[in-house]
């Protein structure tokens, strides 16, 4: 892969993601104030000591934004990784085994997908206690239904190839076939899918936090920060728009990179269509 072949839009995306990850990793060093520290008056305008102003309790908005990057990216990433692990293992097992197992997993997946994700999450979170790991798990399980669908479709294409048949005839077990034959040959389309699901996870987590069901205060999180500061909007205070903009910017950056990855994958296939 040549660095010069990466289009301009993808560079914007890569740089944006890099900045966000940098903020997340070195939050305590970068943030001028503490995450939960009340440093001034409520809703001070931007400028002076506080680059972006203060929030509804008088905490520094910039510091919370930097710490929020940590929470948001970590939780979204954890949920995506778990959902991929779960979805891919189940879908590859279904594709390789076939028969009853395939039918059972696929029909159950259809059932899960028949309820919209947000509604499903609302119903489940209404019952479960509010812990961070439960939130991550719920997001991961709901997201894994989408991974399952794509993973199964991709794996079915590969599972009928000659080299898989050869491996079967050699007497390799299912686990070998999944990890050594199918996984390496499906990585490319699944990588683009991973980015897509990550962007979706960021938006989904922010939506849940905004509804008050995601990450609980006082921990900083971009969706929750919008919720905290939303009452200021009526008075013309834009504090809620800043974390909202951060979510949007990160999601756009991820999408720009995914767009490029997808074009690369589809151009490998050739064909007349540019759809």
């Amino acid at each position, binding site marked *: 892969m040549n660095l010069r072949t990466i289009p301009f839009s993808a560079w914007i995306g890569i740089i944006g993601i890099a900045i966000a990850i940098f903020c997340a990793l070195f939050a305590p060093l970068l943030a001028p104030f503490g995450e939960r520290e009340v440093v001034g008056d409520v809703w001070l305008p931007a400028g002076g000591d506080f680059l972006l102003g203060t929030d509804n309790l008088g905490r520094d908005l910039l510091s919370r934004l930097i710490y929020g990057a940590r929470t948001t990216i970590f939780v979204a990433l954890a949920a995506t990784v778990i959902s991929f692990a779960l979805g891919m293992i189940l879908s590859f097992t279904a594709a390789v085994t076939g028969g009853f197992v395939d039918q059972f997993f696929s029909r159950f997946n259809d059932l899960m997908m028949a309820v919209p994700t947000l509604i499903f999450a609302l119903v489940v979170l209404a019952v479960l206690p509010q812990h961070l790991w439960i939130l991550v798990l719920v997001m991961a399980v709901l997201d894994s239904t989408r991974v399952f669908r794509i993973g199964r479709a991709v794996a079915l294409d590969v599972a009928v190839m000659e080299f898989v048949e050869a491996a079967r005839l050699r007497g390799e077990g299912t686990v070998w076939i999944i990890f050594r034959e199918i996984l390496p040959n499906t990585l490319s389309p699944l990588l683009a899918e991973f980015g*897509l699901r990550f962007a979706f996870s960021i*938006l989904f987590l922010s939506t849940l936090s905004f509804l008050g069901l995601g990450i609980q205060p006082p921990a900083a999180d971009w969706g929750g920060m919008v919720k905290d500061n939303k009452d200021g909007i*009526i008075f013309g205070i834009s504090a809620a728009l800043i974390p909202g903009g951060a979510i949007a910017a990160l999601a756009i950056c991820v999408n720009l990179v995914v767009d490029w990855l997808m074009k690369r994958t589809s151009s490998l296939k050739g064909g007349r269509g540019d759809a």
Partner: protein
Amino acid sequence: MMESGPITGPVATDATAGETALRSSDLAGIPAKPNPAAEERGGTIWQRFAFRRPLAALILQRLGLSVGLLFAVSLMIFGGIEALPGDFATTYLGQSATPQAVENIRQDLGLDRPWSERYLSWLGGAVQGDFGTSWASRNSVSEQIGNRLGNSLFLAFFAALVSVPLAVGLGMLAVQFRNRLPDKIINVISLAAISLPEFFIGYLLIMYFAVEWGVATFPATVYNGMGFTDRLSAIALPVATLVLVVLAHMMRMTRAAILNVMSSAYVETAELKGLGTFRIIARHAAPNAVAPVINVIALNLAYLVVGVVVVEVVFVYPGMGQYMVDAVTVRDMPVVQACGLIFAAFYIFLNMAADILAILANPRLRHPR
């Protein structure tokens, strides 16, 4: 899948686009096969019916499938909640509650009965439109929903009215100018719009239209007996938000669907024959693009019904979504279950509509091999 661009915004549509395709192949089942031998052998009543009227049989089958799916979803919503840990009584009274007080509340709410019994009585009530009483407010859930469902549908209806023609028009424009400047501009803007969370768009619109310029109202309060024009002006901003949320996605899918048709062999043949652009689109591309575009619209409408949840919370609009979110925070299970079931029902039946419309618009789907 007719989708190839990145899709993240709407929760469900990206997957459901494939879902319908999968359903039509996987779940179509045996009876719909037009089996020539069925007539001679006699067969069952259903087989003969399916042979004589394959279209009606297919549609009936989809209807039955959706009802079955809805039933399974109701079981999952109710049974899943039972299986998960957590208890309203202990949450409601706090950790320090005496066992006696917890027991009293459980008896009061009927939680001491076995869950299968409660499920059957709940389902029986739900079919008749009775969702029981709310635990938190002790009001009838159905009454509340009756008021709010209308409000939500009102909002979704106007959002659909604006977004559907706009999305199809812009999608066609993007195809017409494929890979040229207008297409690229539309592509970049829609990619950005897909990445914006609903609440961000909502507050951005409030900030500028309601606060800075004062041309719109916030919050979007509606009440019984409100005039139609007042109501329209109250929902202007929520509708605009919903349109922006769903528009980019619908447009990208429309563009992909039309491009898919435009890059097929018969359109290439028509081009090579020397036919004009208009003739190609009107006679060759459009009839084949109708089915996928209708499918795209129905899928996005299904999303719209769900998308109202966040938008209603942002605009403090008295609809179903707001009701459900409020109930979730206080763990008012009868309300959560009722709202969840109704949202799921809308979603399932709009998906079914997409399926049936696709069958109607595409003769080839009527005879699955």
